[in-house]
C-alpha cells in the first residue's frame, strides 16, 4: 500500500505567547511584533501524516495558503520529513474568510491530484474557528472525521480513527479519500531533523529564487531557469501556485469570495497591573462583595 497524504498547514502569529515587547503602550497587541509560527495543531497533523507514511509507505505533500513569507513553514515541514511542498500565494487571496480559504485549498488539492487522506490541524490559533477542515471536506465532496486523536488502522480504501466527542470518544471508520482534523493531544510532533535541515534550508519558491537573483528584472533568465531545474532535481523546490495555477474563480477567493465581513474590531486592553486592590480586611471584603452584588455579578 502506498498512501498519498495531503496536509494543509498555516503560518500564524504567536498569539499564545504575548510578551511585553508585543504590547503597545495602550495595552493592545502589536501584531507586527509577534513572531510568525507554524500553527501548533498543524504540526500534529503533519506528524500524523509522517507516521502514516513511515508505516505504510507513500508520500506526504504539505500545502499552505499565505503570503510569500509562509514558505518558512513549508521549509520546516521539509525539515520534519515532508516529501513535497506547495505555497498557494496570490494577492487575490487576501482577506479570505474560512469559506474562501476552503475553496482555495480545495482548488489546490484538486490541482495536485487524487489523494487518499487530507489532514488539517483542528484549528489555527489566530482565529480558533476550526471551520476550514470540515469546509474543505465538503468542497472536496469527501467524508470528514474531526477531532481525531489517533489513526487506529489504515487498510486498502478505509481509515479507522479515534475521534473525540463531548465527554468521550468514538471509533469511526470511513472509506478513503477522507479528510481528518487532528487535535493537539494526538501526538508529539518530531523536531526538525538536523541533516534534513542542512539540506532543505536551501529549498525555495520561484519568487525567492528570483529575489536571490535580483528580483523580477534579473539579468540572466536562462541561468535562473537552469538553477530551477537543478533545485527541482534535488527536491529543493517549493511549488508556488497563483490563482490561475489552481484554476480558481477570482470571485470565490479572497475578499470577494468571503461572505463574512468585519464590521468592527476592538482591542482588548489587558488589565495588567490595573486590578482593583482590595485590602484583606473585613471592611475591604465587605465592600467588594457589595460591589459584586450591585453589579449583578454575585447574587
Amino acid at each position: 500500500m502506498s498512501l498519498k497524504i495531503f496536509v494543509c498547514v498555516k503560518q500564524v502569529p504567536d498569539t499564545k505567547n504575548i510578551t511585553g515587547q508585543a504590547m503597545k503602550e495602550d495595552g493592545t497587541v502589536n501584531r507586527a511584533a509577534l513572531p510568525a509560527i507554524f500553527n501548533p495543531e498543524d504540526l500534529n497533523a503533519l506528524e500524523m501524516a509522517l507516521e502514516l507514511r513511515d508505516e505504510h509507505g507513500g508520500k506526504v505533500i504539505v500545502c499552505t495558503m499565505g503570503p510569500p513569507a509562509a514558505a518558512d513553514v513549508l521549509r520546516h515541514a521539509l525539515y520534519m520529513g515532508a516529501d513535497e511542498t506547495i505555497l498557494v500565494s496570490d494577492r487575490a487571496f487576501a482577506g479570505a474568510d474560512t469559506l474562501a480559504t476552503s475553496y482555495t485549498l480545495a482548488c489546490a488539492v484538486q490541482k495536485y491530484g487524487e489523494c487518499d487522506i487530507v489532514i488539517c490541524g483542528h484549528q489555527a490559533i489566530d482565529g480558533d474557528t476550526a471551520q476550514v477542515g470540515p469546509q474543505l471536506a465538503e468542497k472536496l465532496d469527501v467524508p470528514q472525521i474531526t477531532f481525531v486523536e489517533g489513526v487506529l488502522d489504515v487498510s486498502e480504501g478505509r481509515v479507522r480513527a479515534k475521534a473525540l466527542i463531548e465527554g468521550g470518544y468514538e471509533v469511526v471508520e470511513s472509506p478513503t479519500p477522507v479528510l481528518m482534523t487532528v487535535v493537539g493531544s494526538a501526538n508529539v510532533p518530531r523536531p526538525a531533523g538536523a541533516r534534513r535541515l542542512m539540506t532543505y534550508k536551501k529549498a525555495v519558491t520561484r519568487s525567492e529564487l528570483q529575489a536571490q537573483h535580483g528580483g523580477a528584472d534579473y539579468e540572466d533568465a536562462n541561468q535562473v531557469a537552469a538553477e530551477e531545474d537543478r533545485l527541482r532535481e534535488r527536491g529543493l523546490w517549493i511549488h508556488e501556485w497563483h490563482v490561475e495555477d489552481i484554476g480558481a474563480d477570482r470571485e470565490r477567493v479572497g475578499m470577494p469570495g468571503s461572505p463574512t465581513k468585519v464590521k468592527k474590531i476592538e482591542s482588548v486592553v489587558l488589565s495588567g497591573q490595573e486590578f482593583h486592590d482590595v485590602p484583606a480586611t473585613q471592611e475591604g471584603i465587605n465592600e467588594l462583595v457589595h460591589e459584586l452584588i450591585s453589579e449583578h455579578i454575585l447574587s
Partner: protein
Amino acid sequence: MSDKQIGNVWVFIEQDDGKIADVSLELVSKARELAAELGVRTEGVFLGSDVAGLVPSLHEYGCDNVFLAQDPGLALFSALPYTKVIVDLVKARRPNIMMFGATPLGRSLAPRIASKLLAGLTADCTDLQIDDFEDRANKRVLKQKLMQIRPAFGGNIIATIVNSWEDPQMVTVREGVMRLDEPTPGRTGEVTEVAVELSDEDTIVSIIERFRAESSVNLKAAQIIVAGGYGVGSKENFDLVLEFAETIGAGVGASRAAVDAGWVDHDHQVGQTGVTVRPRLYIACGISGSVQHRAGMSDSAKIVAINSDANSPIFAIADYGIVGDLHDVIPKFIKAYRARV
C-alpha cells in the same frame, strides 16, 4: 432584499442519548429574543431517532415550531447525513438565522453545512445583536442584520462580524455564554415532520465504538466558579474552598497543581489540559496563574484573585486582587456574603 419575506430564527437542537444539550436550550432563549426583535418565529431543528418525546420540552423552552427529522440513520451524529437533512431543509424553508452550539458536534456540522450553502459562518460568538450594516464595498445598507460578536486573535481583540451574502446567517456559540430562560410549563407549539431519505452515499461513515463518561461536574455551565490552587496547601484545607463555593452558589474549579496533588478530581481542572470556562465571576484562591491555567479562564467576565504573593501572575489578569492568606480571606468573604442584604 427589502421586499423579501424575512426568514425565521433557527436553532439546531443537539441531543445525545435522548438528552438535549444545555447549550441548545440556551440558544433557544437567545433565538426568542432575536426573533421578537425581527418579528419572526423561533424554530428548532431536531434530528435523531425516536426523539419525538422531547419535542414538548422544546416548546416549553420557547420553540414556536420544531422541525423533527427522525430516522435510524440519524440516531448518532454523523456529518454526512446530518448535513444532507439540514441543507435540504434550509433550501426549502429559508431561515434568516441559524445557530449551533459550539460543541465538538456543532463545530463539525455547522461548517460543512455553511460550505454547502455558501453561507457565512462565525464561530464561538459571545454576543449576538440585530443592527443595520453599511456594506461600503457594495454601497448599500443591509437592514436588521445579525451582529456576530466574538473574540479573536487569542482573545486579544473583539470582532463584530456580519454576513453580507444571502441568508442564512450562521453562528456557533459556546455553552454557558447565553442566558438560559426558565421554561414555561404547558407552553405548546407546532411540530413539522421532516421526511428523511438517506442514500448509501450518506451513510458510508460508520461509528464502530462509542464511549462517553457522564461527568457529575459541569463547570462549563457554571456562572460563578471558585477555584483552588497549590496555595490552598492540603486536602483538608481544600474543604474551605468547597465551603466557599457552596456558600455563594459556585462551581468548584482547580489548577493542575491542586489536581496533581490529589486534593480534587481531574473533572474540576481548569486550563489548557482541563476545561475552558468563561463564567460571570471566577475567584482564584491560591492560584499563581500559569499561562496554562489562564488559557482556561482568562475569558471570565470578572476575576477575583486571592493570593499571598503579590507578584503572582494571576494578578495581571485580575479585576480585583486581594493580597493575603486565603485561610484568612475566604472566611471574611463568606461572612460578608452571608451578611448581604
